[in-house]
């Protein structure tokens, strides 16, 4: 019986295994990330930020790209994690790793608590409820000045060296190393989850929720777990930002931040795991370069770039890259257009 089963479903199993294996471009990406530490020592502060926003976008990808929940308020978790880590450090406990964990846990808790609100209704409802929660948290943080520093931000955050060895330096070396390692570890976790049976269930829910119900999948439970995990990851990203910059302000809880991470994910291409990372790199670097050329009007060119991108390729930058690769692949094999499958 078992042998029969294995024989009949071998192709599908193989396909899934193949999808889960590491491809050369992926390995190259992470090697480059490590190389950046040595090759671009002057830009590590910027690259740390890219890593943090990449992690944040990855957490959003989990619910948006894989579970199909649209959220305009993901910054609530990011900001909560950021403030948790910041307040902890400000009150004297400057150990980075535990601060990171605290940030992630607090955010996951909020994610779990609000997940039930988010699962009701249509896309627009979800959009607005998530946004509402984020905005409410923003207002609360604004008002409790005594804890959060209000509109002036939380200052006086100083961190102890990581594992007692690496202290945060002015050049951002420790910050970058720390950010990239955390990003990589969480990425590995996310990758595992996506390629697991649970991840497949999530994707099924995104494609056709009713059918998943019919199959007997406990849809609500799956979504709650996904949402909580994503919230925790976002909280980790927020804590990471606070620790690497030793500063946190209301900005991390703002609608603008939620919009920024959504933008980054969409720019990079959702549902591809790397979309968030690529999008973060692209947007932050572009913003940096354009802002340097034209401090007042960089926004215009970014806007035009977005419009152009949408018409050039669907699915963001990853879509563009995949389309280009498919075209090259087809040409290489003597076909005019990419074949299906």
């Amino acid at each position: 019986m078992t042998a029969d089963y294995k024989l009949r479903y071998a192709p599908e199993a193989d396909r899934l295994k193949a999808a889960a294996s590491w491809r050369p471009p992926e390995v190259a990406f992470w090697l480059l990330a490590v190389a950046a530490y040595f090759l671009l020592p002057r830009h590590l502060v910027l690259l740390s930020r890219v890593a943090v926003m990449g992690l944040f976008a990855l957490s959003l990808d989990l619910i948006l790209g894989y579970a199909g929940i649209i959220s305009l308020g993901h910054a609530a978790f990011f900001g909560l994690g950021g403030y948790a880590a910041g307040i902890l450090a400000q009150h004297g406990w400057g150990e980075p790793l535990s601060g990171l964990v605290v940030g992630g846990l607090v955010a996951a808790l909020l994610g779990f608590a609000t997940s039930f609100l988010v699962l009701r209704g249509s896309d627009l409802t979800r959009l607005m409820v998530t946004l509402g929660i984020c905005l409410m948290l923003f207002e609360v943080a604004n008002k409790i000045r005594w804890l959060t520093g209000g509109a002036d931000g939380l200052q006086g955050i100083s961190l102890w060296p990581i594992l007692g060895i690496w202290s945060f330096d002015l050049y951002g070396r420790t910050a970058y190393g720390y950010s990239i390692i955390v990003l990589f570890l969480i990425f590995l976790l996310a990758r595992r989850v996506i390629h697991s049976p649970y991840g497949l269930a999530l994707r099924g829910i995104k494609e056709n929720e009713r059918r998943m119900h019919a199959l007997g999948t406990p849809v609500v439970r799956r979504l709650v777990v996904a949402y909580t995990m994503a919230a925790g990851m976002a909280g980790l990203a927020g804590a990471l930002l606070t620790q690497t910059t030793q500063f946190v302000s209301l900005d991390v809880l703002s609608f603008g931040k939620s919009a920024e991470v959504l933008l980054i994910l969409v720019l990079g291409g959702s549902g591809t795991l790397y979309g968030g990372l690529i999008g973060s790199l692209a947007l932050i670097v572009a913003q940096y370069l354009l802002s340097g050329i034209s401090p007042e009007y960089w926004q215009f060119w970014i806007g035009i770039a977005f419009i152009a991108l949408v018409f050039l390729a669907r699915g963001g930058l990853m879509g563009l890259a995949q389309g280009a690769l498919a075209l090259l692949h087809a040409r290489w094999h003597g076909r005019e257009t990419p074949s299906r499958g």
Partner: protein
Amino acid sequence: MLTVLFDGIASGALLFLLALGLSITLGIMNFVNLAHGAFAMSGGYVAVVLLNRWGVPFLYCLPVAFVVPALAGVVLERTLYVRLYNANPLDQVLFTIGIVFASMATASYFMGSQHQIIQVPPFLHGQFHVLAGFDIGIYRLFLLGLCGLIALFLHLVLMRTRFGSQLRAAVDNGRIARGLGINVNRLFAITFGMGSGLAGLGGALGIEILNLDPVFPVKFLVYFLIVVAVGGTGTVSGPLAAALILGIFDVAGKYYISQIGAFIIYAVMIVVLIWRPQGLFGRRAVH
């Protein structure tokens, strides 16, 4: 107390005018046009240029503030938006945000980044005293009256004309509407244009009250989204009720409990959406 109520209603009326176009766009085309605020902003800037640079009287600026964004809307809809109707909502988001950024930078370049200041005609200045503790601002009264008339007009169009019934059909079920021979594309263009025009008019009327600067589209996007989500799509009365509620709670909240102010409207919105996910007056649309 009554002054606060009146202020809230006037505020809500303006918000209705601004957000109605977004509600219609979402309902009929299932397209979340995050750039809606940009059309409102353009109407405002058109009015500022006419008023401040060319000395056109305020009341004559208003129709122009309607027409220019309306035309821009139709043109953009026919050239760019139409290609994205079947696209992934996320690509639509990217596209509309691109438009927002470009419009904000353009406004900043041509008009500067400070709040625009205009002088409304003297007959719209000041308040008149009705009761003790109840003063009616003349400008706000004018605003309320104008928005009320427009709301009534639109309601009649939607409910009593053939165009209106075609529109409602397209919102209910676009595919079947097409099957019935309704020229849905032309409908899209006209409604998009009108929605943008109304937003532009709202932008012009709002200069006195809301402060016009290049960040306008993003600053008020949240309010527009709340009105659309709470009010539902496909009707005029839905967004109107939602906008009025929002306006009243916002103003009253800031007046009475200024410590939490804006918190109240978000809480109200979440409560309403949990209770009725399709909005207060929304109809479950089939696409």
